[in-house]
C-alpha cells in the first residue's frame, strides 16, 4: 500500500528539514508512532501502536538523503510490516514557504496481522497521513499541536465524529491529558 500526502509550511527549508531529520520528532505529529530512537548515524529503532493494543517495532535505516531536499528510509531486518518512506522538501512559489511531499509504502503481510493492519488504516488510509501533516504544520508554524474541547487529544484523536462535546474538560480528562503529555 502506498500513501502520499503533501502540505505547505511557512518556514525555511533548513527548519523543516532539521525538524524531520531529527527522527525523534516524528511521533509528535505522526499518529501511529509511539517512539523513534536513533541508534546510529543512519539507523534508528521505531515503535508503533498496532490494533488491539499491540505494538510493533522495527529497525530502520536512512537510505539516501540530501540536506534540505529529501530524506529516504526503509525498515531493515525482519520487520512485521516492512515499510519505506521518502519525504521531499521543495520551495513553494511564494518564495518563503516549503512544500513537504511524503510517500509511505507498507508491504502488508497476509494472515491476521495483515488484515488487522488493513483495518487499522480503514477505508480512508490517506486521511491519517493528511492529518499527520496538518499536525506537522501546526507544530512548525505555531509551536504545538492545536487542541479544542471537542478534539483535545491531539494525535491521539479517538474518532473523527461524534467527539466529546465542545465543553471544557473534566478534572479527570485534564489529568489524563497531562499524563499523556508527560509520557
Amino acid at each position, binding site marked *: 500500500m502506498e500513501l502520499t500526502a503533501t502540505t*505547505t509550511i*511557512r518556514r525555511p527549508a533548513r527548519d523543516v528539514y532539521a525538524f524531520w531529520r531529527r527522527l525523534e520528532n516524528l511521533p509528535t505529529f505522526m499518529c501511529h508512532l509511539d517512539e523513534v530512537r536513533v541508534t546510529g548515524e543512519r539507523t534508528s529503532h521505531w515503535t508503533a501502536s498496532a490494533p488491539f493494543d499491540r505494538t510493533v517495532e522495527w529497525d530502520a535505516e536512512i537510505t539516501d538523503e540530501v540536506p534540505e531536499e529529501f530524506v529516504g528510509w526503509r525498515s531493515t531486518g525482519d520487520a512485521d510490516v516492512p515499510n519505506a518512506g521518502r519525504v521531499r522538501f521543495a520551495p513553494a512559489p*511564494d518564495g518563503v*514557504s516549503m512544500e513537504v511531499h511524503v510517500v509511505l509504502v507498507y508491504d502488508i503481510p497476509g494472515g491476521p496481522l495483515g488484515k488487522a493492519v488493513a483495518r487499522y488504516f480503514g477505508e480512508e488510509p490517506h*486521511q491519517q497521513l*493528511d*492529518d499527520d501533516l*496538518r499536525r506537522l*504544520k*501546526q507544530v512548525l*508554524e*505555531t*509551536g*504545538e*499541536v*492545536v*487542541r*479544542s*474541547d*471537542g*478534539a*483535545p487529544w*491531539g494525535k491521539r*484523536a479517538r474518532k*473523527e*465524529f*461524534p*467527539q466529546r*462535546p*465542545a*465543553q*471544557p*474538560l*473534566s*478534572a479527570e480528562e*485534564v489529568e489524563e*491529558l497531562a499524563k499523556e503529555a508527560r509520557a
Partner: protein
Amino acid sequence: MRANTWAGRNRVEVRDVPDPTILNSRDAIVRVTSTAICGSDLHLVDGYVPTMQDGDVMGHEFMGEVVEVGSGVDPSRLRVGDRVVVPFPIACGACAACTAELYSCCENSNPNAGIAEKMFGHPVAGIFGYSHLTGGFAGGQAQYARVPFADVGPLKIESELSDEQVLFLSDILPTGYMGAEMCDIQPGDVVAVWGAGPVGQLAMDSARLLGAAEVIAIDREPYRLRMAEEAGHTVVDFEEVDVRSRLLELTGGRGPDKCIDAVGLEATHGSTPIGAYDRIKQAVRSETDRPHALRQAILSCRSGGVVSVIGVYGGLIDKFPAGAWMNRSITLRTGQCHVQRYMEPLLRLIEQGELDPTRVITHTLPLEQAPYGFEIFKNKREDCEKVVLKP
C-alpha cells in the same frame, strides 16, 4: 460554571459544565462579562449546520477579563487583568492565510480540519461555539471561556467604553463593515442590503460611512425596517411590494450599484410558491440552504455591480442565477469575516463616534435566560433585534 449549551434541534439549555483550563501554551482564560446571541447561532439551533453535539457550549460573540494566560503568551501582548474583546475566528497569526490577513481561513486553528475539508474542499479556521466542523471549541455564552492563540486575536480595550459599545467588535460590526467594504463603494453608489437584522443594520451604517449616496434596507419585520429608517436608511418591505420593481423605481431603472446579502441560508420569501419550493428541498436535504436573498440580489444588481455576501451559507444551493451573474458582469464577493483585520480601525471609529453599534441592542438578559433570548430572537417576538447576555 454555567454555560448555554446546544441540546438538540430547536433547544438550548443553560447547564453546569466544568471550568475551562489551559490546553495549549498560547491559551488564555477569559471571565466573560458580556456575550451576545448571533443570527448564525440560530442556524445551529435550527439544525442547518451539521456536526453539533448535545452539550456543545454555544456563543462566538464575547468579551471579558483575562484571568489566566498560558506560558507561551507574550506578556507584552496580553496579561492577567486585561479587558478584551475576542474575535470569533480563531487564528494562529503565522500561516499563509493569517499572513495575508485572511484570518477566518487560518490553516492551523481547526483540529477538525479533516471534517471541514470533506464539506468545503479545503478546511476553514476554528470558530468558538460553532459546531465541530469549525473545530469543536467551547463558546462564550458562559461564565468563562478558553481563548486559543490569545496573543493573536483578542483586542485590548484600554478606554472607558462600555461593554455594549465594544462587544460587537467580536463579530457583527466587522462582519457588516466587511460586507460594505467588499462592495468597493464609489461616490454616488446606491447600496441595497437584504436583511435588517443586526449584521444588516451595521452593514448599512458602514456603507454610508464608506460613501454610499443612499442605502436601502430590505426586510419585512416592521420593527426592523423602523430601526433602519430611524438610522436614516430607505426601506423596502418585501411583504408589501415586489422588491425588484421597487428597487428599479428607487434607482431610476438602473438597479442598486452594490448589493449586500445579510440574510444567508434561512431566507424567507414574499412569494409563497418559491418559498415552499426551497423549504421542501431543504427539508428533504436535496438543497441545504434557502438562497432567496442571494438570487434576488444578483437579479436586482445593476450590470457591472457587486454582490457582497455576508449572510452565512453552509452547503449547497439550488437555482443559482448563473446567467444573470455571468452575462451582466456581476462580481460576487464573500467570506466569513476576517475580524482581526478590522477590530482596531473599527474601535477608533467607535471612539470617534462615527459608528454606534449599540443602536441594535433591544434586550439585555442574564445568561440563565439564554433559552428565552433565543426564542424571542428566532421568532422575532418583542421586537427583538439583538440580545446581550450577562453571565
